[in-house]
């Protein structure tokens, strides 16, 4: 019996070895074809997965913050967290799987450097993570919570909207949880489907009391994250997960701040204002250059950066100049944040038209 078993095992291993080469050719898209036509040459069938196309456009190397280093987005996040924990002895980082470095490597090395009481795993419970973070912040210590994917932030919605956002107001400023920051991977990655791709910023935009920030690049991410951590209000920092590796540029090693609630005009133009945030900024930049090349249209590109409280003045000022506005985002259209921007700008532009300021007599259109 043992001999039979051994022989069977030997045969299986042999078959596996032989099959390996045969099967290797059928990976990915070519697999189905391999089943149907096993003898066909399959170099042409070995296609890569089709993923959404965009090209990350790095910003020029920043000169005013000292020495820089090439970092991708997750490394720039690690750098910001490292700076924070070094500067602020009360700061702690917690969430699911942050101890070993995190599923996106954002917290690599921090537990070894700062200790297991400062960088630690929590049980798998988003409402607990945020509630726990609020409690730390109430005592005045700095709490940096991680929600593993923005798609899973909803169990914590009550704690964020009913508790964190309202802590200061409802207590008459006796108590607050301003030193809470929630970080979460956000947005499309190509293969994420329903539950690893969401952009939930619009749900939180409707909630006064919190700030929601979305960077477009490693340099922006570090400066904005540091500002969120130091901000005296609870902040949600969404990190475009597709940029974790795909975006790399020179980022200062030392800490620096990029102000919140300030949009950035990254390209000046005269014919139309394009507004986006996160990954979509790079798509829009490409659109701007295509428009210039093919249509002769001069686009002003704005990265909103902070979703709430958002920089109404910069966007409105731009639309006064160009007379046209296009907003592009990943999230669903209905009730998406573009609707807030467009309605506010239309209210503003209606006002401009009503007062008939001759300088700004252009017709206004919003897309």
């Amino acid at each position: 019996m043992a001999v039979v078993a051994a022989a069977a095992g030997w045969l299986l291993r042999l078959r596996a070895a032989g099959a390996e080469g045969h099967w290797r050719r059928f990976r990915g898209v070519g697999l189905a074809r391999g089943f149907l036509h096993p003898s066909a040459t399959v170099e042409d069938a070995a296609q890569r997965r089709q993923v959404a196309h965009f090209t990350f456009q790095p910003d020029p190397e920043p000169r005013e913050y000292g020495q820089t280093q090439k970092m991708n987005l997750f490394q720039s996040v690690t750098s910001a967290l490292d700076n924070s924990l070094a500067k602020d002895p009360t700061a702690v980082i917690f969430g699911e799987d942050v101890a070993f470095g995190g599923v996106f490597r954002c917290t690599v090395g921090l537990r070894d450097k700062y200790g297991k009481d400062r960088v630690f795993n929590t049980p798998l419970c988003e409402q607990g993570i945020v509630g726990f973070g609020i409690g730390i912040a109430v005592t005045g210590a700095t709490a940096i919570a991680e929600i593993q994917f923005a798609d899973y932030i909803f169990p914590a919605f009550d704690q964020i909207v009913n508790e964190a956002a309202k802590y200061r107001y409802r207590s008459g400023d006796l108590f607050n949880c301003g030193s809470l920051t929630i970080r979460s991977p956000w947005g499309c990655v190509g293969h994420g489907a329903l539950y690893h791709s969401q952009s939930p910023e619009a749900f939180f935009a409707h909630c006064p009391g919190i700030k929601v920030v979305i960077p477009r690049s490693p340099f922006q991410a570090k400066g904005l994250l540091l500002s969120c951590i130091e901000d005296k209000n609870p902040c949600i920092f969404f990190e475009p997960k597709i940029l974790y590796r795909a975006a790399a540029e020179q980022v200062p090693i030392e800490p620096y701040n990029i102000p919140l609630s300030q949009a950035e005009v990254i390209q000046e133009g005269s014919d139309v204002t394009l507004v986006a945030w996160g990954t979509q900024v790079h798509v829009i930049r490409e659109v701007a250059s295509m428009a210039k090349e093919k249509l002769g249209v001069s686009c002003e590109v704005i990265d909103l950066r902070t979703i709430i409280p958002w920089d109404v003045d910069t966007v409105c000022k731009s639309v006064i100049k160009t007379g046209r506005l296009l907003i592009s985002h990943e999230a669903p259209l209905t009730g998406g944040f573009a609707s807030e921007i467009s309605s506010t700008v239309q209210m503003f532009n209606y006002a401009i038209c009503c007062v008939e300021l001759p300088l700004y007599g252009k017709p206004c259109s919003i897309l």
Partner: protein
Amino acid sequence: MAVAIAAARVWRPNRGLSQAALLLLWRPGARGLARSHPHRQQQQFSSLDDKPQFPGASAEFIDKLEFIQPNVISGIPIYRVMDRQGQIINPSEDPHLPKEKVLKLYKSMTLLNTMDRILYESQRQGRISFYMTNYGEEGTHVGSAAALDNTDLVFGQYREAGVLMYRDYPLELFMAQCYGNISDLGKGRQMPVHYGCKERHFVTISSPLATQIPQAVGAAYAAKRANANRVVICYFGEGAASEGDAHAGFNFAATLECPIIFFCRNNGYAISTPTSEQYRGDGIAARGPGYGIMSIRVDGNDVFAVYNATKEARRRAVAENQPFLIEAMTYRIGHHSTSDDSSAYRSVDEVNYWDKQDHPISRLRHYLLSQGWWDEEQEKAWRKQSRKKVMEAFEQAERKPKPNPNLLFSDVYQEMPAQLRKQQESLARHLQTYGEHYPLEHFDKRGLQCFPDFSTAEAPPLARMIYP
């Protein structure tokens, strides 16, 4: 260990190395350590053992199929010190509190009771919008508060006013919050009984239930890191304990080793829902061991039992950095709130039993009387005095104006963002034009008029067009 070696002889007769291997692999006390030590450690992986190797549990194998029967007929026993007549049952459990402290316990409970009666009535008369009484649960508040340090942080639900009363929160401020007047530290923003006091380390109450539980755990973790020698106490009812946040809080406290006391007031009802519809297990105390939490059930109407349990829990929570769960059994004598009429779902007889036969105030009074620390005359004098104090604070609160409408917009963020400032200015202009339709005479109006009069025909500024 000798048993293991004997077992090895029976099971593996041909493996000469077995005994030596077992001696090497069996770390004495490793499994014993996992059982007795409060933290469950990962067992070392040893592949030659026939013992379970699963990282998820420290347990032995069993070859008999048997479901564990939850024990609800004879549940966790209820610790008490006094009987229903206020007599000490076991003298060794008497905390022997000094007279002043016991009198403070008594006066806090009775003053709270008096304030409850007057404020409940004031809601009935339309003077305040809403109120919640604490009838029957006063013992849980003061017994626990007395066992804490004054700097221990308190997270409550909404029926813990006695904790603030014990910490000498002035009647004026209780009333100010209920009236939402200009003296309210909360700036008149919340419904009545949503008290908060930074000075007395009582975090402001919020309406959503159980949200305070994981927050209290976070605060305890921060206190541990700060070596503050502080405990955090978190109060909640048996109904709130059904919320997901309660589960989250318990689990986090245990895994992250936080110095926190979870204090559950099991008063029999969550509005109209009796405990038989709230849970099927043995109350809240039985859940503690499931999380690895030290747990106890006490008679919540026995101030000394509550005191003893809280005192010991506090000492150990701080010393050992672990959570404690106290389930204080009590009864909600009053309605859930002024919006509730509990005769719709329970009998008057049931309520009367608790009011007459098992009330924390009566039981402590009997104790005081038997000690010779109180008598009928003092009782009469104190009733008169406490009523007078409450009425004075009440009349003062009535007369004060409401907070400035500008305070609708501040503290949303630490700094006021541009959009909110525009909304604030818009309201100011609205009140200028339509103020006669609002009861502005009851409000503090200082600084409200911030724009010039627009009755002159001039082009309005841009901002006014956006926010008319």
